[in-house]
């Protein structure tokens, strides 16, 4: 074998490197940037300044953004609280509700494939005397409603279940969860970072009480997010986690990031208007990518339910090839891997492990995150490149050779180190 990295001729419409990691972050939409720009310079006022035009101008822009965000999720403007991003929104939701409803109970229910912003916040709550139930997921990555029903007790104050998973793109049964929580009088929070702007979200139809969202996942700016907090039926109360000037109805003090908020609003507006068309385009490209990979490679495995799935997500394991070595071979394509070698902790993806996948399959996984600015030419290039590199790495893989010889790799006595 001569080289692992042979450079195919670049097809037209493809420029390297290709960004296909849109669950991590997204580029700013130029239309969003245009909306933001005046608020860095000419319109620099503090939205809390009540006695001059600079403040009024900023406040007006913030109010418009609030409307734009609310409209995307079926809320009202007054129910939107601005934050620095979804991590802060998640922290504020869980800690704020935990503190406010402590007398009613101390039990929180979440599930194992949540983002660390939820899981680590829940761990801290446990240290402070709260009980947390971490629901398992099935092989598809979905929670079972029966598990949730069983987990609820008379001390349960909050259920926090993500809308769509950031690694495997699986969409949880949000409307069912919301209905159950509403019937039981338990608050329902959802980390909807990956769902908002990508698929329809309606806080009323889905009985969502509190919802976290982020700007930079929807072609908006980084450093800005929001928390939807229901005002009616029921009126949700949240204890502030930061003391200060009492901004955002006292729930989140701090001078508002006006350009960021304007950007978040514009990003929501664009997503709302273009969601349907964009979702169809992304689903088609994702399916094309999957078909190409599956028809050209053996030992591939799609992770997570494809029935309940975000349009732009494909998480695939290329068994007998280690994820980091695959990323190295496709280094002109930006994607993510569930391989331990790519994580700071040297542990393979806990999300994939929660699906019951072996560590070896988790090590072999790649997350493709298609977004607004990807093209079909890029999808074709990525598919060809991945096929090429996987084939070359499999020539190098003793496991692939053994599997092809019919050796059951689970029966081999490995010398773990």
């Amino acid at each position, binding site marked *: 074998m001569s*080289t692992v990295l042979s450079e195919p001729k670049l097809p037209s419409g493809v420029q390297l490197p290709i960004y296909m990691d849109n669950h991590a972050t997204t580029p700013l939409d130029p239309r969003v940037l245009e909306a933001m720009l005046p608020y860095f310079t000419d319109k620099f006022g503090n939205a809390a300044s009540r006695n001059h035009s600079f403040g009024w101008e900023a406040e007006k822009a913030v109010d418009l953004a609030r409307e734009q965000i609310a409209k995307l999720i079926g809320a009202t403007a007054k129910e939107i609280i601005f934050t620095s991003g979804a991590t802060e929104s998640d922290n504020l939701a869980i800690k704020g509700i935990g503190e406010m409803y402590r007398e009613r109970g101390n039990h929180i229910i979440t599930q194992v494939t949540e983002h660390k912003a939820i899981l680590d916040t829940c761990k801290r709550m446990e240290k402070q005397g709260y009980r947390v139930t971490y629901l398992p997921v099935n092989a598809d990555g979905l929670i079972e409603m029966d598990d949730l029903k069983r987990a609820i007790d008379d001390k349960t104050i909050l259920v926090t279940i993500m809308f769509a998973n950031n690694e495997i793109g699986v969409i949880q049964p949000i409307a069912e969860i919301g209905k159950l929580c509403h019937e039981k009088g338990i608050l329902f929070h959802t980390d909807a970072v990956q769902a908002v702007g990508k698929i329809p979200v309606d806080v009323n139809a889905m009985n969502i009480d509190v919802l976290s969202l982020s700007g930079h996942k929807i072609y908006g700016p980084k450093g800005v997010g929001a928390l939807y907090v229901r005002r009616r039926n029921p009126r949700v109360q949240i204890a502030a986690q930061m003391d200060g000037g009492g901004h955002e109805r006292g729930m989140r003090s701090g001078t508002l990031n006006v350009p960021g908020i304007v950007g978040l609003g514009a990003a929501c507006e664009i997503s709302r208007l273009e969601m349907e068309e964009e979702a169809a385009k992304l689903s088609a490209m994702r399916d094309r990518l999957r078909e190409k990979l599956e028809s050209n490679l053996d030992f591939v495995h799609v992770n997570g339910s494809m029935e309940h799935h975000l349009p732009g997500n494909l998480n695939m394991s290329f068994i007998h090839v*280690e994820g980091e070595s695959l990323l*190295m071979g496709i280094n002109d394509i930006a994607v993510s891997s569930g391989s331990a070698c790519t994580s700071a902790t040297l542990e393979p993806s806990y999300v994939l492990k929660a699906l019951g996948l072996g560590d*070896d399959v988790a090590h072999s996984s790649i997350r493709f995150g298609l977004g607004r600015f990807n093209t079909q030419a890029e999808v074709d290039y990525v598919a060809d490149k991945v096929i090429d590199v996987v084939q070359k790495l499999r020539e*190098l*893989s003793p496991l692939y050779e053994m599997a092809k010889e019919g050796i059951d790799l689970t029966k081999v006595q490995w010398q*773990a*180190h």
Partner: protein
Amino acid sequence: MAYSDKVIEHYNNPRNVGQMDKNSTAVGTGLVGAPECGDVMRLQIKVNPETRVIEDAKFKTFGCGSAIASSSLATEWVKGKTVDEALEIKNTDIVKELALPPVKIHCSVLAEDAIRAAIGDWKKKNVALGEQAAVPVAIAAN
């Protein structure tokens, strides 16, 4: 993770990829690591029974780029050495040659283990030739 030029070079042009007949008495096979740990190396050596010189070496590795480079380098280094000389190769030599960062040191350890396992397997097969059957590390030959 930034890779050193040498790691990239070995990854792009791995040396001595392949397999030899593991049932041959002249061939020693070392299979180390585990799929769930994210790296498995198979290193094979072909030894001249007269001179005890390693005349050929082959490898296949499932693992990250540093693991591939470490085992590729190991096959280069063992070729032409006697089995006793090959046992002198230390993982720290591999770390130095490939400029591996601390997080990748285990790749070099695995390569050293693979050399020792291959030599151990060869010795075990050649006890009749007066070889000590001592196996430096456990071998997970399939």
